[in-house]
């Protein structure tokens, strides 16, 4: 750096830096307070390090700060406050019989929102986010229920599950008529034709006629003489057009041959009673409930 240089046009001192041989920058200084503000922010930052948790330390923890502040604790407090705000609803849900929840217009929006959230979490993976179901996973929106569609029945199903291993689980499975040699190949086809005819879907009346006897002998015990099903045993109604494992001839044949028995986990003990109740009320509200 040489001595000071004054730009002849403006009369302003230059910075002394030269670009491209002749370009020089004028020295237009920032106000000093600006610099002091920068220093102040640095001091502030250091204070911040001391006051709040800031630095990780070697032994896998961090400096705790002098205020004993913890974001985690703050969030915890907020959650507790939110829970407290909801407590009145929870108490009311606990006190209301499940059948009456839908009638309580004040409670219903809370139950719906809460139920939908848990449903999406716990039930959605199998039944679909809106309870639409899939092959092997019942559609919860229709009015066809294997184990009963009253709010109470739904709650019980959710609590104990189906073939879940729970002591009171809803248990009973469709036998393996083909695999276990109880029915022969053509008997299975005849029985399937008869089953399809119950809901008006049969195609081969002769086969269906032969199948009627087989049905009475083997299936009526659970599905009833008229094939209307039995919710005590979880036996599906075969006269409606709703099929859990498909309603084509091949589907029904396969069902008779290999048997069926899906599993639903039980939720008692894993969800608190109020949540279970909200969930049951929500499922009932999906539309199919009785």
């Amino acid at each position, binding site marked *: 750096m040489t001595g000071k240089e004054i730009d002849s046009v403006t009369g302003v*001192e230059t910075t002394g830096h030269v670009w491209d041989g002749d370009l020089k920058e004028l020295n237009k200084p*920032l*106000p000093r*307070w600006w610099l002091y503000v920068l220093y102040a922010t640095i001091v502030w930052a250091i204070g911040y390090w001391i006051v709040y948790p800031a630095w990780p330390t070697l032994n896998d923890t961090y400096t705790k700060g002098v205020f004993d502040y913890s974001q985690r604790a703050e969030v915890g407090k907020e959650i507790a406050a939110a829970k407290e705000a909801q407590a009145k609803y929870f108490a009311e849900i606990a006190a209301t019989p499940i059948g009456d929840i839908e009638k309580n217009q004040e409670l219903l929006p809370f139950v719906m929102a809460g139920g939908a959230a848990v449903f999406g979490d716990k039930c959605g993976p199998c039944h679909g986010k*809106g309870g639409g179901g899939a092959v092997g996973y019942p559609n919860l*929106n229709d009015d066809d229920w294997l184990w009963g569609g009253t709010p109470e029945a739904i709650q019980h199903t959710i609590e104990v599950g189906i073939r879940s291993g729970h002591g009171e689980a809803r248990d009973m499975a469709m036998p393996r008529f083909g695999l276990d040699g109880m029915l022969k190949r053509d008997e299975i086809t005849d029985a399937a034709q008869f089953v399809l005819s119950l809901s008006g879907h049969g195609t081969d009346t002769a086969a269906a006629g032969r199948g009627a006897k087989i049905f009475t002998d083997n299936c009526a015990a659970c599905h009833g003489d008229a094939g209307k099903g039995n919710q005590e045993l979880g036996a599906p*109604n075969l006269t409606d*057009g709703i099929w859990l494992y498909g309603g084509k001839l091949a589907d029904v044949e396969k069902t008779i041959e290999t048997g069926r028995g899906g599993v639903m986990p039980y939720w008692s003990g894993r969800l608190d009673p109020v949540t279970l109740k909200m969930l049951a009320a929500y499922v009932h509200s999906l539309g199919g409930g009785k």
Partner: protein
Amino acid sequence: MNMMNRTSDLAAGENATAYARRQKIYPKLAHGTFRRIKWAVMAVTLGIYYVLPWLRWDRGPNLPDQAFLLDFANQRLFFGPIEIWAQELYYITGILILSALGLFLVTAVAGRMWCGYACPQTVWTDLMIVVERFWQGDRNARLRLDYGPWTFEKIWKKTGTHITWLLIAVATGGAFVFYFRDAPTLAHELVNGDAPMVAYAFLGIFTGTTYLLGGIAREQVCIYMCPWPRIQSAMYDVDSLLISYRDYRGEPRGPHKKGQSWEGRGDCIDCTACVAVCPMGIDIRDGSQMECIQCALCIDACDEIMQRVGRPQGLIAYDTFRNLDAPVHEARVPVRWFRPRTLLYTALILIVGGVMLTAWMNRAVLEVNVLHDRNPVFVQLSDGSLRNGYTVKILNKQHAARSFRIAISGLEGAGMTIVGMSGPEPTIDVVTDDLRALKVLVTVSAAKRGTLAGQATPFRFAVIDARDGSVIYHDATFRGPGDE
């Protein structure tokens, strides 16, 4: 020592570095048209700011009667008869877009009009300078006071200034919090010490910033903190009217004695009156500068001088670069108002304004929203009938509880049930200012399935006001498996 010219100051500075002491500016009081306009703008803007929260507006029972209120607790914005709900925030967005476009247009036409006349920083700084002038006198007196020793006079004059500044600052912060809560109630609470903490916090913040930015920092805010000066140069062009020194008329400048000829010299008598009044401490004769907020005070100052020396006014005036650079200058500049830029901004303002106005006119006090359930989109029931689920949301924006019925139109043989309600068309009560979401199930019986138009049958939900029978329709679709 030349206090007026930062350029010469710096050049004179022996140890000029990257950081320099702030050059304090002592703006002199200007007299003239623009100063009068600025007084008027100051009176109006400050008047609105301080008085607005105290104006009342009767909205009936259970509603705030403050004409302008930002009601955060209930997520409403009240402005006279206008009421904006949180979900209608797009109106605010629209207003912000309009403001931005307005700023662009004004800048394209006449430079930093906003900065010079209406910006809060300018208005409050101007007010703070009035206070300073009241206690310490005009420019020369203030200079003398600042460069003189600390006397008793200096102490009480300075004290008086700062106390008045702080009082104004408190009033400003006070007015701010009144916008968010019923003003008379809050005023009472503030005095009694039981206002919400956040009210005190904001009062403190606004007191501090008003005092600091308006009283102390002043032009430093415009030069070093505000981004707008740096953006503005993209906003105006050679046809924009900017405050300019007409050097073709003024140069060569120099002192002029009464009776001397004006032949062969410019009109500028180098009196530096224009520099003395400048709140930014610049010399407009150096040309267009980033610091200039286009406040027009130098026009007033110079016009006064021109009158005194018997030369035509307008040596400093609103003028365009096109005219300044022209080989022949006209006294009256034919301004090109209609340029692509101004036309575009105007068109955009009209379009956005039109859209907002239309939206506002069609704004209903009842809003109906219908959401079709997904997964499954339709359900077949055991008797072969088809059912679709919908969430119907009714938003009652009227300040009275209302009752509705929901009906279906245009779907033959459809039945409807509402979860949690009995009967085919139950009465739905929606309380004041509230939203009610209902789960509605629509069923088409097996016998009527043939009447459906394939996979998607359009129909309408009718939401009927139980009292006056008025109906709002909402389009919906009934879905089914289609041809079987």
